[in-house]
């Protein structure tokens, strides 16, 4: 912790110094980055987005830069805080495009902010390789914004993954078919609960408890008590980080006895295992990575070395991968011409830390991790839509 | 013991008090008379250090100038003011109001003794120690206010219209209490009052202000015979009654 504190102070000092310093060498490739440093999504951005921006820039520059048609050009990041405010995101992207005249812009953080920025990316022809946008409107959106790419998967795919994992556990005889499902009453939670409900029912599960709670609820114990009272075999929560932590803690306290315990965003954060330690064992969460794969392990090591923090086991690697896509597309196209780079992304597949990324005709990445599970202190992918490296799901042991 | 010299108070363009001077001797009851807007309340507030307007002049308490001191320090010099509207803590109980009266260091040593004497002065307060002041009648609230002021162990007690809105009996009780304050506690009393009956009954000395200036001073009888005072009060055409 102490080290991180110092690091942040150092980073702040560097930023101030950089603002005063003369512009970097002319041949640097200027890359814009916009994301929340403050506001409601700052916590998520600080875990998933900003460290990867830093890591990617360090990695690229350590290699001497991006090879653009034969010249190695280092990258220079121009970063702005959007305060989790779509108006600010729009302003910042616009500023990057016309004032800073950056060569490329990394996609912003979260669904809402990506969509707010999409028209501006579109107008200037920037390829927009999103990493943390989940939507089921991929077809419509890519028709409207042809250079927008979707990587993280949609609600339907994630819901399918969860249902498959539960079905697998049930078919193995590990759990029964009683499911308690709760969601945060926000776009993400509502969308996923809506997608999961019919699929659970179609798979023969009985939803014995279902409810939503508002963002910012300070006591989730009534919800957990309700879930316990319904004696479910599996618990599914479409939650955000603060409530993911709170629901898990309540489940421990209320001793929720289930064979499958699923919480959504935040479960894959290293802080989750840090906080719950052995109790995290067997907890299912959204996302996942091929945790045993060399690519990820090497990435995780660099992440910790460069940023001082561990990556999460879902969107971190995905975020980094989209940067890699951009990097490889620039090298592949051999130019900084945005249209050419965007076309290159459409036409090619990319080798990244999460494996191969190949966008389909709707600019959608069809193969993404959907469910992961804490096993032995590592959050391992257990279900995906076509990713390699899934491990078998285990039944949730009793809370310790 | 209190001497106000050439005191002026102005609120913006309006001069409420224009070089007024008042002298108050030890254990005297001095009344300041004057029509509404004559600057009487401004004078008391200026002495207590809580006047909002611009204040110029000297306020000498036993020779020391207290003008411009912070109000809590003036209290600690032994000056207690019961302002117009009484200024009691309406949401607090009688005994809390009285305890607050003895807040300053000056009053603490004698708090218990003073409390007994206040209770003797206003026996009614003893019966109602725990009552919330807001729920009391105007006359009773005035007792709380004066009692609280006496708890600060003052050398001089200033009262701004202590009997406003009271009926005759209440007024008489209050007059008696004010005499007690002088006679039994030996405290100087400076008061602003309209009720001439009461003024005549209790005051040693009267000072009449009009238009921000002193127009007369003397004993009650002298002042009452003063033509200028009569004119100010009952109008010019009134023959002597």
């Amino acid at each position, binding site marked *: 912790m102490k080290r991180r504190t110092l690091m942040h102070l150092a980073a702040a000092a560097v930023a101030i110094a950089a603002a005063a310093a003369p512009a970097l060498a002319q041949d640097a490739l200027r890359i814009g980055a916009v994301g929340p440093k403050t506001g409601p999504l700052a916590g998520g951005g600080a875990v998933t987005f900003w460290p990867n921006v830093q890591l990617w820039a360090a990695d690229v520059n350590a290699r001497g830069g991006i090879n653009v048609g034969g010249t190695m050009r280092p990258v220079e990041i121009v970063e702005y805080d959007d305060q*989790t405010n779509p108006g600010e995101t729009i302003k910042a992207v616009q500023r990057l495009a016309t004032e800073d005249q950056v060569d490329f812009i990394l996609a912003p953080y979260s669904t809402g902010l990506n969509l707010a920025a999409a028209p501006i990316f579109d107008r200037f022809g920037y390829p927009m390789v999103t990493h943390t946008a989940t939507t089921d409107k991929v077809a419509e959106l890519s028709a409207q914004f042809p250079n927008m790419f979707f990587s993280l998967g949609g609600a339907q795919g994630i819901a399918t993954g969860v249902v498959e994992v539960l079905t697998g556990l049930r078919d193995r005889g590990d759990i029964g078919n009683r499911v308690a499902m709760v969601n945060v009453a926000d776009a993400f939670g509502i969308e996923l609960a809506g997608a999961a409900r019919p699929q659970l029912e179609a798979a023969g599960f009985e939803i014995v408890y279902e409810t939503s709670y508002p963002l910012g609820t300070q006591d989730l114990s009534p919800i957990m008590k309700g879930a316990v009272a319904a004696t479910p075999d599996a618990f599914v929560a479409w939650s955000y980080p603060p409530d993911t932590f709170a629901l898990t803690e309540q489940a421990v306290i209320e001793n929720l006895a289930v064979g499958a315990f699923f919480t959504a965003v935040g479960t894959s954060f290293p802080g989750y295992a840090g906080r719950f330690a052995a109790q995290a064992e067997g907890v299912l969460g959204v996302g996942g990575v091929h945790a045993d794969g060399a690519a990820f392990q090497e990435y995780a090591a660099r992440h910790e070395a460069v940023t001082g923090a561990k990556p999460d086991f879902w969107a971190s690697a995905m975020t980094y991968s989209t940067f890699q896509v951009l990097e490889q597309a620039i090298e592949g196209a051999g130019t900084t011409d945005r249209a050419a780079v965007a076309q290159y992304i459409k036409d090619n597949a990319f080798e990244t830390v999460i494996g191969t990324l190949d966008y389909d005709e709707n600019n959608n990445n069809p193969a993404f991790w959907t469910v992961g599970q804490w096993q032995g202190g590592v959050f391992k992918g257990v279900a995906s839509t076509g990713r390699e490296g899934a491990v078998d799901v285990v039944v949730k042991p009793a809370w310790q | 013991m209190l001497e106000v010299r050439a005191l002026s108070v102005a609120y913006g363009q309006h001069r409420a008090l224009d070089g007024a001077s008042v002298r108050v001797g030890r254990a005297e009851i001095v009344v300041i008379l004057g029509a509404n807007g004559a600057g009487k309340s401004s004078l008391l507030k200026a002495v207590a250090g809580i006047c909002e307007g611009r204040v110029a002049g000297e306020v000498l308490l036993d020779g020391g100038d207290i003008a411009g001191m912070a109000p809590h320090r003036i209290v600690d010099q032994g000056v207690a003011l019961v302002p117009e509207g009484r200024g009691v803590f309406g949401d607090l109980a009688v005994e809390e109001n009285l305890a607050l009266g003895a807040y300053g260091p000056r009053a603490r040593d004698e708090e218990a003794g003073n409390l007994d004497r206040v209770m003797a002065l206003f026996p009614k307060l003893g019966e109602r120690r725990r009552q919330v002041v807001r729920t009391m009648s105007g006359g009773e609230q005035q007792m709380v206010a004066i009692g609280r002021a006496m708890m600060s162990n003052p050398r001089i007690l200033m009262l701004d219209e202590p009997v406003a809105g009271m009926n005759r009996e209440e007024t008489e009780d209050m007059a008696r209490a004010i005499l007690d304050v002088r006679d039994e506690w030996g405290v100087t009393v400076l008061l602003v009052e309209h009720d001439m009956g009461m003024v005549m009954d209790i005051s040693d000395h009267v000072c009449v202000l009009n238009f921000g200036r002193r127009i007369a001073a003397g004993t009650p009888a002298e002042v009452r015979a003063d033509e200028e005072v009569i004119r100010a009060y009952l109008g010019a055409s009134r023959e002597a009654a």
Partner: protein
Amino acid sequence: MTATEWRDLGLALVVLVVAAGLPFFGTPYYLTLGVTIAMYAVLATSWALFSGPTHYISLATAAFFGLGTYVTAVGIDHLPYWLLLPIAGVIGAVVAGLVGLATLRLSGVYFVIFTLGLAEFIRQVITWAQNLMGTRGLYVLTDLGEREIYWQLLGLAALVFLGGWLIGRSRLGFALRIIGDDEEVARHSGIDTARAKVMLFMVPGAVASITGAIIAPRYVYIEPALAFAPILSFTVVIMALLGGTGRLWGPLVGVIPFTFLTEWVARWFPNQSTLVMGLAFLVIVFLLPKGFVGLIDGARARARGAFA
């Protein structure tokens, strides 16, 4: 109308025409800033129309703004876009009227917190209703670009200024100035203060709602957390107070420098933007207690004094 009024009107028209030309001669970046300025000019000016004379600080802007974005988001698939703006306006005005009837007797800080609570309440109810109906974040996919949005906001700004000017010349406006100076005198002069205040409260309600409806296509994706963000209410208040609420153009002279200030801070202190913003804020409060209007008026008075 007096000669000065004709001059002011002419001046305003020139400014409007010049502003409307921004998309043709400015860079897209300046257009984006133009949208921001136009949006806050509309919100802050209409806010000050009510809060200036009455001294009520309303933090309900986000509530009405959010309502407006939802009108567009829900209605865009069913009704023509141009119909949505007046609908948003009516809904905003009606809600503001109801709120006003219920709350304008609250004084000072109670009203402030009430309006804040109101925004949260509306947001919670909409969130819950969305959850109940299973609707997710709403998409507003239109062909409206920054330029069209800018012009709409500019038009709305013109309407707000015209409305403010007309109100200023009307009995209502006169009544409100009296209320602002001394409510007791106002009542004893025969003014129904409650009715005047409620009527006026409907103006920022309607305007903020229409602004939300215009902005919705810019955000593309509408969800309660973004549409009802309380920071909007605070920003509007601060910009208006920074400018000064005593004049119709007061908030505008707050909005423009504030927008450039935030822009400057965001650009040069991306990691410390909140810190620098906060410090800037303290400096403003301490050095400009009466806003820019006070500064300008003070300078004018001094200039007059120098001539005299």
